[in-house]
């Protein structure tokens, strides 16, 4: 099955389910080093995205990603709203015009999402943010595609790398986002944004239809 608008739409629905399921856990992580709203924020955004999804019958994958971006920007707020919103917008741009996505385009979309997050948020690897999960995920996806892997393999590699990256945020002292206000006290906690990024990529990796 090619990764067309229908598959991307189904993936967005799965992401919304996963965020709904994990929202309390994400909010709990955010109460330790932030302000106890990350799960609530993303849940609000993905629920809004569900309402705005175009009819996959006459949409391209990029249209679906754009609709998600707009919903996140207009409903999430906080730091993660503009960051995830920009990520989805850039991912849409990377696959503009394509009817279905191959493995390389999936890797491109992830790379574009990372570039967007970094342009808006100015975070580097090791700042204890979304970037710490997304950046290794991009590298792993690209390496997998370069080694001849398909989309499923690339996404699985990305998911594993993201999970490792998120885990590795635990000892870090945050330099960006609200957690940075805690200084040394931010160490010892997993970053909520890196955790949600991992959940999203893991969901894509398990999504039915992502075989290309």
């Amino acid at each position: 099955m090619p990764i067309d608008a229908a598959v991307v739409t189904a993936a967005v629905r799965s992401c919304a389910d996963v965020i709904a399921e994990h929202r309390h856990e994400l909010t709990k992580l955010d109460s330790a080093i932030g302000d106890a709203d990350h799960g609530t924020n993303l849940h609000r955004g993905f629920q809004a995205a569900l309402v705005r999804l175009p009819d996959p019958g006459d949409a391209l994958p990029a249209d679906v990603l754009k609709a998600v971006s707009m919903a996140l920007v207009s409903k999430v707020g906080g730091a993660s709203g503009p960051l995830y919103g920009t990520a989805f917008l850039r991912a849409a741009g990377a696959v503009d015009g394509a009817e279905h996505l191959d493995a390389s385009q999936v890797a491109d979309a992830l790379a574009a999402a990372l570039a967007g997050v970094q342009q808006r948020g100015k975070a580097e690897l090791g700042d204890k943010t979304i970037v710490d999960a997304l950046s290794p995920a991009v590298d792993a996806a690209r390496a997998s595609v370069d080694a001849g892997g398909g989309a499923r393999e690339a996404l699985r590699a990305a998911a594993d790398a993201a999970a490792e990256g998120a885990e590795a945020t635990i000892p870090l002292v945050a330099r960006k986002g609200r957690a940075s206000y805690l200084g040394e006290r931010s160490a010892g906690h997993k970053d909520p944004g890196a955790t949600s990024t991992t959940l999203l990529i893991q969901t894509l990796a398990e999504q039915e239809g992502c075989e290309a």
Partner: protein
Amino acid sequence: MKKLINDPEQVVNESIEGFAAAHRDQVTAHFDPTWVVRNDAPVPGKVGIVSGGGSGHEPLHAGFIGPGMLDAACPGEVFTSPVPDQMQPATKAVDGGAGVLHIVKNYTGDVANFEMAAELAEAEGTRVRSVVIDDDVAVQDSSFTAGRRGVGGTVLAEKILGAAADKGYDLDQCADLLERVNNQVRSMGMALTPCTVPQAGEPTFELEEHEMEIGIGIHGEPGRERMPLESADAITQRLVNAVVEDLPFRRGDEVLLFVNGMGATPLMELYIVYRAAERLLADHGITVVRNLVGDYITSLEMAGASVTLLKMDDELTQLWDAPVKTPGLRWGM
């Protein structure tokens, strides 16, 4: 969680509906996207002043809408920055032809969302200037981090800029003045108890009877340091000294001293802090020429206080004294 609410999902909407009903002679609330605006907006020829941020800091920001202060405010979800969809109509509605000033507290989310809103407003032909407030000395300043938070200084900045816009300052003069205010205001806060975000349902941190958090912000987050509880005088000394040393404020300076309650601390205790702060400043040779004491920028039901010092001069004093008529701050009219 024990709160006077109906539904955790509806706290912001229901509170703003009540606020708008109580002050319907002065303000109008719009919903989905949510923004609150003074009834006589836009004021022709005047720079429009817009602020916004997460809810849970009441009376900030909507409580400061009215002549002499803000023209519109965009309340986000509890402790979550508002979105561009809210700032865009608010900005447009208060543009009386002289452009619009955004007063933004320094949080990654607030800055990014206001940035996007300003780009959209400019594209539609409204001139926008934004200035970011970052007065919290509890956070180390560095170009490699998110920098300092915007806290108590925001209230003073909104009052002073509202007066300046009324007096006919143009957009660039307003932005310059706001930068100057931000450069000479500093704050530090502490908490005796945590608070509970309604949708989270649990306190954001636990604090034992004999403990306090020093260097907190306004989002229920833990502070820089947890330490054994001290007397009001000793705590005030910590806050005042950190603030004075940071700018630094010097012998001979004239200041506005703002003692702010975090939401659940009685005014009686805030005056005990004020008493200590004024005496400490006198020891430093610093004169308090204006003051403000009360709950103006809160963190839900957190108990605690913050101390803000703004270095004053003739211009700032005149602007501070100018009439203001808002639900949360009113004198001279």
